[in-house]
C-alpha cells in the first residue's frame, strides 16, 4: 500500500517536472522568435548601417571642407568667402544628420517595442497551464531592453582617403586594424574648431566578404544595455515572467523568469 502511494507520488512529480520543462521549452522558443523579430525590426530597412556610414562620411566631408577653407584663406584669400560658404553648408548638414540620427534612435526602438508587444500578445500572452495540483499564470512581458553586443565595432570601414584624418583617428584610438573598422558607441569628434559637431557611430556587425551578417540569438551575457550617448540599438533583450503556484496541499509559489536576447542583422554594402 505504502509502495503504491510512493510510486504514485513519484509519477506525479515526474509528470509535473516534465510538463514544466515542456512548457518552459515551448515558451522560451516563442520568446526567442519574438526577440528575433524585434531585433530585425530595429534595422528593418538597413537604416542603422546606412546611418553609420553616412555619419562617418559626413565627418570626412566636414574635415575636408575645413582643410580647404584653411588652405584657401592662406593661399587664395580672394576665395575665402566661397570656401567659408561651402564649409558652413556642410556643418549645417552635419547638424541635420545628427538630428535625423537622434530621431531614428527613438523611432526604431519604438517600432521594435511595438512589434515585440504585438507578437507577445498574439503568441505568448494566452498560454496558461492548469493541472489539478499546479497552476501556471499567463506569461507577462516584464522588461524590454535595447542595446548592443559587447565588443562589436561599428560597421563603418576605415576611410583612408584623407591621410591627415586617418592619422588623427589613429591618434585618438577610435579605429581597429583587424578588421579595419571604426569603434562603436563613440562620438568621433573632429579636432577644433569643429569639435562642437557630433558624429556618433553605433555598434553593428560589419558587412564583410560580401556578406551581411544575419540576425541571431545570443546568450544574455554579451548584451550591453543601451541608452548611453544616445546610440542606435542593434540588440534587444526581453524578459517574461510566469508565476507558478500549487493548487492542492500546502501552498507554495515560485516565479519563473525567461530571458531572450537577439541581435539584428549587420550592415549592408555602401551604396
Amino acid at each position, binding site marked *: 500500500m505504502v509502495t503504491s502511494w510512493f510510486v504514485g507520488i513519484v509519477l506525479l512529480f515526474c509528470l509535473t517536472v516534465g510538463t514544466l520543462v515542456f512548457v518552459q521549452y515551448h515558451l522560451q522558443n516563442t520568446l526567442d522568435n519574438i526577440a528575433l523579430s524585434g531585433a530585425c525590426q530595429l534595422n528593418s530597412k538597413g537604416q542603422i548601417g546606412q546611418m553609420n556610414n553616412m555619419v562617418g562620411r559626413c565627418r570626412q566631408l566636414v574635415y575636408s571642407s575645413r582643410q580647404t577653407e584653411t588652405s584657401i584663406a592662406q593661399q587664395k584669400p580672394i576665395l575665402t568667402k566661397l570656401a567659408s560658404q*561651402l564649409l558652413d553648408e556642410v556643418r549645417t548638414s552635419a547638424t541635420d544628420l545628427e538630428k535625423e540620427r537622434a530621431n531614428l534612435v527613438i523611432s526604431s526602438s519604438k517600432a521594435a517595442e511595438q512589434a515585440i508587444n504585438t507578437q507577445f500578445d498574439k503568441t505568448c500572452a494566452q498560454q496558461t497551464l492548469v493541472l489539478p495540483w499546479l497552476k501556471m499564470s499567463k506569461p507577462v512581458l516584464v522588461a524590454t531592453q535595447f542595446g548592443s553586443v559587447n565588443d562589436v565595432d561599428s560597421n563603418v570601414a576605415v576611410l583612408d582617403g584623407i591621410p591627415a584624418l586617418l592619422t588623427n583617428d589613429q591618434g585618438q584610438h577610435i579605429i581597429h586594424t583587424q578588421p579595419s573598422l571604426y569603434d562603436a558607441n563613440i562620438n568621433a569628434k573632429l579636432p577644433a574648431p569643429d569639435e562642437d559637431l557630433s558624429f556618433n557611430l553605433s555598434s553593428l556587425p560589419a558587412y564583410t566578404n560580401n556578406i551581411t551578417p544575419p540576425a541571431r540569438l545570443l546568450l544574455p551575457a554579451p548584451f550591453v544595455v543601451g541608452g548611453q550617448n544616445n546610440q542606435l540599438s542593434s540588440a534587444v533583450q526581453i524578459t517574461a515572467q510566469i508565476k507558478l503556484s500549487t493548487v492542492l496541499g500546502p501552498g507554495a509559489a515560485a516565479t519563473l523568469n525567461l530571458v531572450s536576447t537577439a541581435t539584428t542583422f549587420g550592415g549592408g554594402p555602401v551604396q
Partner: protein
Amino acid sequence: MNRKTLFLFVLLLISALSGASRASTTQNQWLVTVQTKSAPSIFNYQGATLTPVTEAQVSFASANSDATPTVYENFWGASGKPLALQRYEPLSIPPGDGIAFKIVNGSDQPFFSETQLAVDAVLRIMLDAQLNANPVLYVSVPSTTFSDVVSALSQQNFIVKDTTLETPLQSAALVIYVVDYSGQMKSTLYYPQ
C-alpha cells in the same frame, strides 16, 4: 621673292604649330566627370526626413589619352545639400594643367537635387584646383539640365554675367563658363569678391 614668301610661310606655320602645341599642353588636359544618380534605397525608412538621397561620383582622366578614369571621390546629398563624402585617391593632376568638368546625369530627367549636388561637387573641386594652380576651362552639362545648373550656381551666390552689357569681371573671385554638350547654350557666371 618667292623664296622670301616661302620662308615667311614656313615661319608662320612653325609659329602656328608651336602655338597650337602650347595650347594643347595648357588647355583641356584633364576631364573631371561628375556622374549623378539617385539612391532611393538609402534612408527609405518611415519618417525619414533626409530624402531623397542622391549620389555623385567624381572621376578624372587625362583628356589626351584613353586612360581609364580614376575615381576620386563620392558625394551623397539630400534636399540639394551635400551630406557625406568618401575620398578614394588624391587629385593627382599636375599644377598648371587645365581642367574641364563634365556633368553626367543618371537619367534624362534627374531631380533638381541631383544637379544641386553635382554643382556643389564641382565647386568644391574647383577650390582644390585653385589651390593646385589648375585653370578651370569650362563646365559641360547636358542640354536638359543646363538651366538647372545655372539655377543651382545662382543658389550658391554666383551671378550670371549679362551678355548685353560689357560687365567687367575684374571684381570676380571666380568665373565659371557653363556650356551644354551641343555647345549651343552658354553662360558665364561669376562669384563676387
